[in-house]
């Protein structure tokens, strides 16, 4: 009985191309999940794939925190080393990338900044610059985060972009770190064109965000 139903389902679905992206999505999602699961089980190949996919994002997040490029690369390497170490000790119960790596990298960057400041000042505590002006880490974090108004402005700007460009942008930037080649194959464009579109959208959103800060 279920075979008959299955057969019917397949004949019904075959002519519909609209279904394909959905299935591809499911397959890719499954791929991501199995990668994370294999990495949690200690599979080096899975770790390599995950690192290759998310490394750039980690480096960029460190750059955004004002870390120098060479140090950013070192810290990103250390981030992955720590995550793998934690996995080997059995301390990782689930692997949500890239957020876990970003958090770890932020922690390492803060630690690094603290240490270098301590080392640069060998004298007494009174000589520390934050003795006079206490450093509030939330200030810089707040500056990085967007205000509600900026967000809505950016959304409005994004809504005016052509639908295909918006799709490309959302695919490339939705936090799953799809490589540009993958985005290109999904929307049926060349990688060059995808990057071009990303740059255009980026320019529009930049002006939308900056407009707000000047006002």
């Amino acid at each position, binding site marked *: 009985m279920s075979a008959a139903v299955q057969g019917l389902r397949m004949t019904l679905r075959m002519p519909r191309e*609209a279904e394909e992206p959905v299935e591809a999505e*499911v397959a890719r999602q499954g791929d991501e999940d199995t990668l994370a699961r294999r990495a949690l089980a200690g599979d080096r190949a899975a770790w390599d794939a995950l690192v290759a996919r998310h490394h750039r994002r980690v480096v960029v997040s460190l750059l955004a925190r004002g870390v120098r490029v060479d140090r950013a690369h070192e810290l990103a390497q250390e981030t992955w080393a720590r995550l793998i170490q934690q996995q080997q000790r059995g301390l990782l119960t689930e692997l949500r990338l890239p957020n876990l790596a970003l958090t770890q990298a932020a922690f390492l960057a803060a630690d690094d900044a603290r240490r270098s400041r301590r080392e640069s000042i060998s004298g007494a505590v009174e000589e520390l610059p934050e003795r006079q002006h206490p450093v509030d880490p939330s200030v810089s974090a707040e500056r990085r985060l*967007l205000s509600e108004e900026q967000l809505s402005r950016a959304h409005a700007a994004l809504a005016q972009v052509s639908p295909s460009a918006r799709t490309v942008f959302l695919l490339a*930037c939705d936090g799953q770190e799809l490589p540009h080649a993958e985005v290109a194959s999904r929307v049926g464009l060349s990688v060059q064109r995808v990057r071009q579109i990303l740059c255009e959208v*980026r320019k529009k959103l930049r002006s939308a965000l900056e407009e707000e800060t000047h006002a």
Partner: protein
Amino acid sequence: MLKPHLTRDSAEQYILGALSPEASAALEAHTLECEPCARLLQEEAVLSEQLQEVAQSFPREDRVIRPARWHVRRAAAGAVGAALAAAASLALVLLPGGRAPHPSGVAGRATTTAALELEMGAPRAIVVACPDLATQDSCMQAAEERGLLVQYPWGTGEVPRYEARTGLPEGALSARHPVSL
């Protein structure tokens, strides 16, 4: 050795990962020596982080699709589990489990399956929420006559439920006064 200063474009390309390895290495080496260029690169990185935030908070189109005659369709859910799994990424389909399948013939199931398949394919369904159990039947009928989909209160987590509930569960010990055990 004097290296060229960064432009916005080159910084952007670097952030996007579009530069060749040699070019990006040269760019990195330059930012280590040149403070304004390092700041430019940081600005681009901040922008890219902000764009991630924008993309993640951008409201996606409504993807909730519910079959109209849910209680009938639910009987066929077991048979089309694979179909539902495929659609689950597109549509938020909640399957309250634990009920025996509706006794119906093979032909009946086949037609409901076909109907379900077709309905899943409908893009951008208009979703009607019937707020309470009292008006559910009339609401559902009115909506179905207009060709809309109906969302049942017991089939979803989003419809507000108003339950009367007093603060402490019965038999709970009070923290305010000493309790004799």
